[in-house]
């Protein structure tokens, strides 16, 4: 769909329709059950924390997935970078800002390692990501002797959670992502490689640095996700044998929603709105005290229904055109 051809009204409608419908349903369900979605400050905090985490994970997942590079390792990058940063922060008695900075740096380095193995080995990215996941999970386990990290009593670090801080993270990340991918040479080359890999390489676009940069950006974003998760609970639990890949699955629904919204405005904005929908649904589940198994089933069904629509919408258009042609014939 060419965005330029759409009128401003259609673009605004296309961008906001899904979030408005989703939140309409969420508020309606809550009202029917006699529950207020945003009752306390803690509810707002949970909402914005989930939005930030899901949005950043969606960015990280989509950067490589949109280019056909499936990356299982993003969860392990979040885990290992949070272990490295919290250990250093405790050791050097750093504030939350210092820990965040180390998280981003270590995430970037880990992303670089992951991307480096991919471009050197030239193995399919999915295979590399399996190996890297095992490697990073193992490293996190070794660094903490398997006990994980706990800094519950460190007010300097656990004081980060707050609506203002989460909003800041969301806005800064969104602005940086839009800047990098929509307004730089790197972003243009990324898009060129995404739509025509061979042609772009033949034209002289250097794919290897672009791919490594993608892994580094995804790594830095997952570093922030690790930071948000760690500072929220004050603990980091260990995961072995692919225990860290669960994080990735939270990003699929927002990614597809974001991709759809992106046709009308900007996919990065779409990922934010997708993250907000996912966070709203999670908060609704919590407020309604729904069983976790029911939550998983409902979320999976929403994903399936949305994907069925996305993959068959051209058939709906064809059906509508056929109907219109038949009506015109009758009139004629």
């Amino acid at each position, binding site marked *: 769909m060419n965005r330029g051809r759409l009128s401003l009204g259609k673009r605004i409608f296309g961008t906001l329709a899904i979030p408005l419908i989703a939140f309409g349903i969420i508020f309606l369900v809550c009202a029917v059950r006699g529950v207020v979605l945003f009752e306390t400050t803690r509810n707002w905090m949970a909402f914005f924390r989930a939005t930030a985490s899901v949005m950043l994970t969606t960015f990280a997942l989509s950067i490589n997935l949109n280019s056909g590079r499936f990356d299982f390792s993003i969860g392990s990058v979040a885990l290992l970078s949070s272990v490295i940063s919290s250990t250093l922060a405790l050791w050097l008695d750093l504030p939350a800002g210092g820990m965040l900075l180390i998280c981003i740096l270590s995430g970037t380095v880990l992303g670089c390692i992951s991307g480096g193995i991919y471009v050197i080995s030239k193995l*399919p990215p999915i295979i590399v990501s399996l*190996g*890297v996941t*095992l*490697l990073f999970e193992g490293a996190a386990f070794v660094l903490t002797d398997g006990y994980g990290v706990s800094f519950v009593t460190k007010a300097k670090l656990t004081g980060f959670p707050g609506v203002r801080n989460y909003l800041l993270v969301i806005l800064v990340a969104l602005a940086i992502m839009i800047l990098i991918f929509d307004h730089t040479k790197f972003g243009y080359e990324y898009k060129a490689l995404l739509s025509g890999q*061979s042609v772009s390489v033949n034209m002289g676009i250097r*794919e290897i640095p672009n791919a490594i940069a993608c892994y580094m950006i995804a790594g830095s974003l997952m570093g922030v996700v690790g930071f948000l998760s760690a500072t929220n609970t004050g603990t980091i639990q260990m995961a072995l*044998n692919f225990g860290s890949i669960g994080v990735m699955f939270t990003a699929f629904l927002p990614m597809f929603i974001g991709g759809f919204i992106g046709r009308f405005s900007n996919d990065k904005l779409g990922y934010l709105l997708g993250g907000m929908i996912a966070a709203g649904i999670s908060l609704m589940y919590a407020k309604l005290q729904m069983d976790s198994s029911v*939550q*998983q089933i409902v979320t999976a069904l929403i994903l399936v229904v949305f994907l069925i629509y996305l993959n068959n919408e051209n058939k709906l258009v064809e059906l509508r055109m056929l109907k219109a042609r038949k009506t015109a014939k009758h009139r004629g």
Partner: protein
Amino acid sequence: MKVKNLLLNIAPLIGLLILIAGYFVIGRINDINVAYGLKTIVNQSVVVAVVATGAVFIYTLGAFDISLGASTAVSALMAGIVYLKTESVGLMFLTAVCVAVLVSLLNSVLAGVFHLPVFVTTIAMLSVLNALALLLLNLGGTGSEIKVPQAAVKSLDTLWFKLLVLGAYFLFCFFLFDFTPIGRRQKFLGGNPLCAKLTGISLNRYSVIAFVICGLGVGLGAFLSIVYAPTLTRNTASSVGMDVIIAIVFGGMPVSGGARSRIYAAVIGAFSMSFLSQIMVMLNLNSGVGQMVKAAIFLLVVFIAAGERKMKTLPR
């Protein structure tokens, strides 16, 4: 060139033989009971090998199913519930197989009828099945476990029975894959879907066949899981899903499917991973270090087995 290709083809097998040799050498040096260790290896490998052998049919098409572990768990839990209601091992076996085949069919129908990417369908199915496993534990068990009496399956908990099930299923798959049009057409579809379609080969039809064969393997894997550990919890078969992927790749199967797909890759990969894990245990390595070494060896073996890479662009 021919010798080089042959070496690349048998690289995973050579890897397995080296690991077996390493296992016995380290066992002898450390004075460890290798016979007992072998029993553990078979117990660890057989479920993954059975499920992965069936999964080769899906991978050959260039598709990817991430929900196999969860499907194994749900099939085992349903079978456990049926046993507790009927006290019949036969019905338990049938339930495990039928549930697994049904889940597989559902995956393929969703992908085929609604034109969803198989991988995305299986991600959604993974969530549904994980949730279903929790519900089944609540409905049919104590909330945390479903306990099939050990005595009911004790007679089947032997190495010979497990190897027999693996052997029979492997031969069945080997025959279908290498000696019938099913295998040939699936390789064709995986290698060049457009050309295969133009030749009149239906992707939907062969996807359904692949998923049904894989479902059969998942059912057998679920039954073997009950035989080995009759107390079923939320951790039952929890690692099978990812182990299957690792085993298939470790065994030399290309993730893109196509003509280079090998049915024996799954068995070689599953046993290689188990021997490697057992060697880590024998060397008394910390779990984290063990996993890191495993990851490094995995990447190295796959790198060697993949052979020469002359492409101008990066693989996707």
